[in-house]
């Protein structure tokens, strides 16, 4: 018998602590598979975020460092500048990257640091207990907006990929999702392209992955996938927002 799939070498063989149906496990596997396929595990340094994925260093079988809340891109910048031969990625959630770490994210893109960011967007804070995130949809309930997000009080959700696409420094930006198996396969291709962008020395790359948090959304994992399809996708359209090698005329959108 032929074994179709096997655990990637870049993932430690332990049970993950994530809730049932959490998207982190899928994205961890995709990043690990990409590291295996590009054969960069031995020279990769990852930055674990604050949030549910804070223990990502237990799971990735490469060198890891854990940064303060939102400071992943700043730490990745330091590592990449002092060790340019290393492949550096920062794994961050939406509360981490789009809220407290927005300054670090924008400025590392503006400086076109040659790093890769994996951005998990599940429209809610996970570990801290389901608070409203900058990416929470209008009308979506969270523990800090129990009646639903009201734009007059809480403002509007932020689209990170569109925001960073305006900057000349960003090189590869794509938004993907993991709510179906087909989207998982596409997300892996996007992550591979982002790492390849860094290997080629082009500059800042970011892959936004629309994910689910069934526990804090208060719904079942299957309903959370439906929520992504019906609610998140209209607000956050999938696609490549930038694929550029630094030339100003090489910007593509779809």
């Amino acid at each position, binding site marked *: 018998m*032929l*074994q*179709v*799939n096997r655990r990637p070498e870049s993932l430690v063989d332990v049970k*993950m602590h*994530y809730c*049932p149906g959490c998207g982190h496990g899928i994205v961890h596997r995709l990043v690990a598979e990409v590291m295996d396929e590009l054969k960069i595990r031995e020279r990769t340094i990852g930055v674990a975020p604050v949030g549910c994925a804070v223990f990502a260093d237990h799971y990735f079988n490469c060198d890891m460092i854990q940064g303060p809340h939102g400071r992943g891109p700043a730490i990745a910048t330091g590592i990449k500048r002092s060790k340019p031969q290393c492949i550096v990625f920062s794994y961050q959630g939406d509360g981490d990257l789009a809220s407290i770490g927005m300054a670090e994210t924008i400025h590392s893109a503006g400086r076109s640091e040659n790093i890769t960011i994996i951005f998990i967007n599940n429209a809610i804070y996970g570990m801290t207990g389901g608070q409203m995130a900058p990416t929470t949809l209008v009308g979506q309930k969270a523990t800090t907006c129990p009646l639903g997000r009201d734009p007059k009080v809480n403002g509007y959700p932020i689209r990170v990929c569109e925001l960073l696409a305006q900057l000349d420094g960003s090189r590869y930006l794509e938004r993907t999702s993991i709510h179906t198996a087909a989207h998982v396969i596409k997300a892996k291709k996007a992550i591979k392209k982002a790492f390849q962008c860094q290997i080629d020395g082009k500059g800042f790359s970011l892959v936004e992955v629309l994910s689910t948090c069934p526990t804090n959304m208060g719904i079942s994992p*299957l309903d959370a*996938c439906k929520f992504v399809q019906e609610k998140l996708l209209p607000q956050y359209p999938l696609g490549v927002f930038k694929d550029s090698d630094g030339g100003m005329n090489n910007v593509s959108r779809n």
Partner: protein
Amino acid sequence: MPNIKVDEARCKGCELCTAACVKKCIVMSTTFSVTGYYPAVCCAPERCTGCGLCAQICPDLAITVFKEEKAKA
């Protein structure tokens, strides 16, 4: 015959694989696993095509997919 093997100690019973399976041959067990979840089981191995979509969506890497090797022509 293509088949899947579910690591019951790793499976957290999220049911994502039951929706991902095109042939609808994965159901949830009616007995608890050692970790207290209802793990996924393959109820109809004869329908399994070994496509691997269940393994793609599994967040806990609990599913291993096996397929027959194609005979070289």
